[in-house]
């Protein structure tokens, strides 16, 4: 047997073998290296590709490429044999999401809020308009191999990594490189890798975007700009455009996105779904999404995207629960995620999602394989795991014929493992294109098995167990009925040589210790046994059967204690609530309609619609009966102004006009405040952008359906709307000394800002009309107008397709906007907050505007010094449609009480007061044809109250939307106990868990979302992506500001 000729002395040996592909342009230093590059790996268990395995096989490698693989291959002359008998060979692994060999971004807090805002990106060359866009970066151009980083990859078997700097929203074009050694150019397998993207502006100091919806809008606008740039750049006819299209390397670089493909990183499963739909708007096909670790929660939705995933295996640390006090800060959601994070890959496999694995997010790459095995324990198949490391990523980077398999013609990237890597194997060497990096000496063929021997007339059995290098053994008496055994002492297995000693006495074979030295070849162990008297006995021991390696570790319990619900947190639902047909009997019905208040009345709900209202109705068969004797029935409560269920930022509080951003892009169906709102009888809410800019973002009307997808929250019957704002917030009065530069800084500038924006929108609309009128040949010659989502939204307003709800307080600004709207040609649908509405009720009525106000708030800032709690009555007296809104998840639980305040302060009739939270806001949201009252034919949104609905003593007992019960107080009151029970079980599990499971491996828990307020205008992305927020703009010393 030929000994290995490679150095076995040090781990990670730098091999003296020339790399397979050398740079011919590099001038020679010294003598040429023309070492032979012919290798034959023999005797290995070769995993040629997922699901295919050859035992005792040979792999031939020539000049860094595999030339043959087989079980009965003859080793051609001149090939250096590498005996890897008993070892497992895998194709080199591929990590699609790395930062290998690229310079990392400096760790800075986005926005540098303490230093004040930065509204513009300094322009340099053809860089992008936004500092979070680095699409022009081609990371191959600065790729620099790094021995330490390479080793960390190789030790886990990764031979290929796709890398770009993980910084910014458009992160540039990645480079696919080998982790082997050589000159940068030699190692680059693909200079034009995929573009990396995310929603995280990273080190950008530009104020925009400061919210998730801003990030989404920026991606959308940039992708549209890239398409436009393709058509526009270089064209001479720019009649519809003010000037020649300027050079822009970032947009130019994105021109090939369809062909090149992209990798989009997200930080939670909701953002994964958002990224998918955003990219679908642009029909981008070659997309891989870097998963967050939370995808198991919505695995079916993830499957529906049809996207490929790149899945990290970084698990979170356990929440601290060691001290009783600690538990006050621990949520059920975090405990559940700690337990279930290792199930993510398995859940995705089960859902049929195609994915690759990545070391991304691991705090230590050395935890990769232990984590793979944990994932396998929790449901990931070994076949899928291998595919996720080889064939899948090879396919995704467009190199399926070069990487990912051990097959002829493939790159000789090999992983040599002592034992099955998916069980407890250990990587001893990684080969990059035929060049070895070794971590452990290759040694010791597999000696495990049973052997019989005869010593001093006694039949004995030698039993060797364990993995290579970690062998244990014993000698047993083979005589019937004997349980004598001797432990092997000084057992050493070094390459082929096996040595040990054992006590003869322990096996009744004499006194003293016998020593053995021999050599393993195939199934024969041949050698010499020295007995205590010095005599030697030649032995040829034949392995009878290779026994299965003893499973030394008792299989860890993989039972899951946590429940999986939607949302996966306290009060989440295990199954979606079903619509029911119901007969509500004998209630006091507040119709909020012409019928008024009806005593002892029945209501029948069929297929989500009120079908019959009357006395003593007959129960249709199969209908659920609800005895509502003594109870009050009202329409579901509607909130014109809410900021619940919004993810990562209520304001895009950077630019003065941000009509391109959309609350509908960032709905968060997992916000507990949805459930809390239901508990207060609220069924519909308009989610508004905050009040940081004169023209804010697009709003979204939702129904408070708990436990659904973001899309299912949307109230389809509601037409589009948008938030404007006037006054102190938009002129940055209370933002601090750093915020005095943005136009406008006063109410006079608010008017011009809005006026000019609409003028721009009109010109934009005209430009498109002019372009559309051109003949197609002229269109080809002409620079087309650029799609501008910001202006497009304003065009929708002018076209009466989107409706304005404007935050406003004082009389002057109310009159200003009415005048401006009349002159510009749009309507203000609702003035919201409008605490001085009573001063301008006449003008609002004439304009056709409605009013949504606070019941009794005042004094918290200068512009509310004249607020009065009788505002509602005075406006209603003038014929204005008035509602009261919450603007807070707290008040949203008791809008009935807010309505009742007008009964107290100005004697409004109780029926009219209730209309302020039912039909009136329905009118304002233009959904009054559907909801807001209890009338035959309307959608069955209703609340059953324990008492008179305007009484402080009333509790919402049941809340229904569309004939579906979403809240039941009697059930709710039992939930807390089960939540506590589950928490305690998980706390116990954490307390008993091994340290490694407690410490985690770099995975993260979701960042808690604050309760959003109108004027919160800090950098939410810093918060969402884990940078400490710095100087946040939110001033809630004790009172709310709005």
């Amino acid at each position, binding site marked *: 047997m030929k000994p290995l000729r490679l150095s076995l002395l040090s781990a990670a040996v730098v091999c003296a073998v020339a790399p397979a592909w050398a740079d011919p342009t590099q001038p020679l230093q010294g003598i040429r290296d023309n070492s032979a590059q012919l290798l034959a790996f023999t005797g290995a268990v070769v995993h040629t590709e997922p699901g295919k395995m050859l035992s005792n096989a040979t792999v031939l490698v020539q000049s860094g490429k595999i030339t043959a693989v087989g079980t009965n291959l003859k080793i051609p002359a001149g090939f250096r044999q590498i005996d890897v008998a008993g070892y497992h060979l895998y194709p080199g692994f591929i990590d699609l999401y790395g930062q290998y060999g690229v310079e990392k971004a400096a760790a800075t807090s986005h926005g540098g809020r303490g230093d004040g805002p930065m509204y513009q990106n300094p322009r340099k060359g053809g860089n992008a308009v936004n500092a979070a866009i680095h699409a022009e970066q081609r990371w191959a151009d600065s790729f620099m191999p790094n021995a330490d980083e390479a080793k960390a990859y190789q030790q886990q078997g990764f031979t290929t990594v796709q890398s770009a700097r993980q910084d910014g929203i458009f992160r540039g074009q990645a480079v696919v490189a080998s982790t082997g050694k050589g000159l940068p150019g030699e190692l680059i397998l693909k200079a034009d890798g995929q573009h990396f993207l995310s929603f995280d502006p990273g080190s950008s100091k530009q104020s925009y975007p400061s919210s998730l919806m801003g990030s989404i809008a920026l991606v959308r606008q940039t992708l549209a700009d890239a398409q436009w740039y393709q058509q526009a750049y270089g064209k001479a006819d720019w009649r519809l455009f003010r000037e020649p299209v300027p050079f822009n390397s970032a947009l130019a670089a994105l021109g090939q996105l369809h062909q090149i493909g992209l990798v989009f990183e997200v930080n939670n499963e909701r953002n994964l779904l958002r990224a998918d739909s955003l990219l679908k708007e642009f029909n981008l096909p070659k997309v891989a999404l870097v998963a967050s670790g939370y995808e198991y929660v919505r695995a079916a939705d993830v499957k529906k995207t049809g996207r490929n995933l790149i899945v990290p295996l970084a698990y979170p640390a356990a929440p601290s629960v060691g001290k009783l*006090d600690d538990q*006050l800060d621990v949520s059920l959601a975090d405990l559940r995620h700690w337990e279930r994070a290792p199930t993510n890959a398995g859940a995705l496999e089960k859902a049929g999602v195609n994915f690759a694995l990545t070391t991304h997010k691991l705090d230590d790459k050395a935890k990769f394989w232990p984590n793979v095995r944990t994932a396998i324990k929790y449901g990931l198949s070994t076949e899928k795991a291998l595919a996720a490391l080889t064939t899948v990523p090879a396919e995704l980077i467009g190199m399926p014929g070069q990487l990912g398999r051990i097959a002829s013609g493939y790159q000789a990237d090999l992983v040599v493992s002592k034992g099955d890597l998916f069980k407890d194997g250990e990587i001893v060497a990684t080969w990059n294109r035929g060049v070895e990096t070794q971590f452990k000496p290759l040694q010791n063929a597999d000696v495990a098995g049973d052997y019989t021997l005869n010593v001093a007339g006694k039949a004995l059995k030698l039993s060797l167990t364990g993995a290579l290098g970690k062998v244990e053994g014993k000698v047993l008496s083979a005589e019937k009925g004997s349980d004598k055994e001797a432990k092997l002492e000084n057992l050493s297995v070094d390459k082929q040589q096996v040595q040990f000693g054992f006590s003869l006495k322990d096996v009744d074979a004499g006194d003293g210790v016998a020593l053995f030295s021999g050599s393993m070849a195939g199934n024969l162990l041949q050698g010499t046994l020295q007995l205590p008297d010095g005599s030697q006995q030649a032995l040829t021991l034949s392995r009878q059967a290779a026994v299965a390696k003893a499973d030394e570790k008792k299989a860890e319990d993989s039972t899951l204690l946590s429940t999986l619900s939607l949302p996966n947190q306290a009060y989440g639902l295990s199954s979606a609530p079903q619509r029911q047909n119901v007969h509500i009997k004998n209630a006091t019905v507040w119709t909020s309609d012409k019928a008024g208040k009806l005593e002892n009345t029945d209501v029948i709900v069929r297929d989500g619609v009120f079908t019959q209202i009357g006395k003593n109705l007959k129960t249709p068969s199969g209908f659920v009966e609800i005895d509502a004797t003594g109870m009050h029935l009202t329409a579901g409560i509607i909130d014109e102004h809410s900021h619940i269920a919004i993810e990562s930022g209520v304001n895009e509080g950077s630019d003065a006009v941000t009509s391109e951003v959309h609350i509908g892009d960032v709905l968060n169906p997992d916000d507990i405040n949805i459930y809390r709102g239901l508990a207060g009888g609220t069924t519909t809410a308009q989610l508004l952008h905050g009040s940081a800019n004169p023209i804010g973002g697009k709003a979204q009307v939702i129904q408070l359906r708990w436990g659904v997808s973001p899309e299912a929250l949307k109230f389809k019957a509601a037409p589009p709307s948008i938030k404007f704002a006037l006054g102190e917030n938009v002129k940055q009065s*209370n933002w601090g000394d750093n915020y005095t530069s943005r136009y406008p800084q006063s109410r006079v500038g608010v008017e011009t800002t809005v006026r000019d924006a609409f003028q721009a929108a009109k010109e934009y609309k005209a430009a498109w009309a002019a372009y559309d009128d051109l003949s197609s040949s002229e269109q080809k010659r002409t620079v087309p107008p650029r799609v501008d989502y910001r202006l497009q939204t304003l065009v929708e307003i002018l076209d009466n397709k989107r409706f304005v709800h404007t935050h406003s307080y004082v009389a002057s600004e109310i009159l200003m906007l009415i005048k401006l709207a009349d002159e510009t040609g749009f309507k203000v649908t609702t003035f919201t907050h409008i605490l001085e509405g009573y001063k301008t009720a006449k003008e609002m009525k004439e304009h056709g505007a409605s009013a949504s106000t606070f019941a009794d708030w005042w004094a918290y800032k200068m512009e509310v010094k004249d607020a009065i709690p009788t505002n509602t009555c*005075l406006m209603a007296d*003038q014929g204005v449609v008035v509602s009261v809104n919450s603007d807070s998840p707290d008040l949203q639980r008791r809008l009935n009480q807010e309505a009742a305040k007008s009964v*107290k302060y*100005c004697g409004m009739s109780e029926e009219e007061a209730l209309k302020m939270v039912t039909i009136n806001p329905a009118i304002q949201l233009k959904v009054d044809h559907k909801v807001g009252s209890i009338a035959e034919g309307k959608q069955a949104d209703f609340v059953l109250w324990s008492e008179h609905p305007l009484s402080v003593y009333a509790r919402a007992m049941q809340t229904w939307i569309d004939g579906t019960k979403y809240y039941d107080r009697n059930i709710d009151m039992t939930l807390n106990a089960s939540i*506590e029970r589950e928490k305690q079980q998980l706390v116990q599990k954490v307390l008993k868990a091994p340290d490694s499971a407690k410490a985690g491996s770099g995975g993260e828990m979701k960042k808690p979302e604050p309760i959003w307020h109108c004027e919160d205008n800090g950098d939410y992305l810093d918060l969402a992506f884990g940078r400490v*927020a710095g100087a946040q703009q939110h001033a809630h*010393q004790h009172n709310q500001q709005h």
Partner: protein
Amino acid sequence: MNFKLNSLSLLCIAAFAAPALATSLVPAAAQQGAVLLNDATLHTVSNGVLENTDLLMVDGKIAAIGKDLSAPAGGTVVELQGKHVYPGLIALANQLGLVEIEAVRATDDTREVTDTNPDVRAQVAYDAQSDVIPTVRSNGISYSLVFPAGSLLMGQSSLMQLDAWNWQDATVKSGVALHINWPNASVLSSPWNPKKPEDVAKQNAEALQKLYDTMAQAKAYVDAKKAGAIKALDSRWEAMIPVFSGERAVFAHAEDARQIRQAIALADKYQLKLTIVGGRDSWRVADELAARKVPVIFGSPFGIPERDDEAVDTAYATPAKLAKAGVTFALAIGSYWDSRNLAFGAGQAVAFGLDKEQALAAVTLNAAKIAGVDDQLGSLEVGKAATVVVSEGDILDYRSSKISSMWIDGRAVDLNNKQKDLHQKYQQRYSR
């Protein structure tokens, strides 16, 4: 539709005082003749609800309660058939009169720098002319305990009556308590600046150490002074003398269970007369609070759950839990303008399990007890201050809370306010 201001309230005002513009509201003069409130429903708090009963006010005190009382000669009889009479409500722990417009710094006298301000007294900045005060008063609130904000040792609170010329005649009791802003112990309190639990614990420990050090320093001064061993007065530690003697209570502003337990421990060490203010988690430690007889001013009757895992009605139901555990508690709401919703906070607690009488006590007699004035205020009892509020109906419910009159120490209070003025002013605009 034509909504009017509660005309009854205007009528009642007319009966006792000339209606004044809110900007020139005149504090009522001392009670001259006797006033007999005839045939009302008296919510005595200390002695249940008395139907069709009379209450006689003489020289600013309640002189008699009973059926068929008659007014002394020269006295006034106010017919209150079907109406409800309550002791004037007491709003605890707010900054009424210390701040006018929250966002305007110049109008804010709520806090001082440094965290050792035991000598700071809230009442000296109390603006009796504040436009906000009459809006609170007209909801039935007659007294307010105002405290200075800040960090650690924030200063002393004072109990103010809400119909006064200036802070001096407004002050009912000064130096009610030393207020301590307890060091934060919860990660949940700073969602904008997320911190790891271990970092919060560390910061809490550091701040707590500082508090202990401060207390030790104060105690050393007090002991040295007793021994005649000080060279010069220290204004701060002088103010701690009544704190260590138990004469002045300590109100610890603590929301989290950990903070509450820490406050109890400090009180044990120095034998402080402790009350918890805020007490968001007080239901979690209700038994401990009851056993140690530590009262609570529960500040979140309308609170939203602090933690995602908590039941939606956690805060609503807390008063009932405190009552069940036997904790003495009062309710408080808001920081200044919003304290006018105090009675409804008590109503909310009733909706979620608290007995109605206990709810009323939580904004009257228990509040007086905690402020140390229950010998004079908080219930309708002979000999106590003639501070009463008349409501058309149940004062705890929006539907029936219509405050028609109020007497503070027998003085008929003008219930007009700036907001009512503005209402009338703009009614004029539309009637032309």
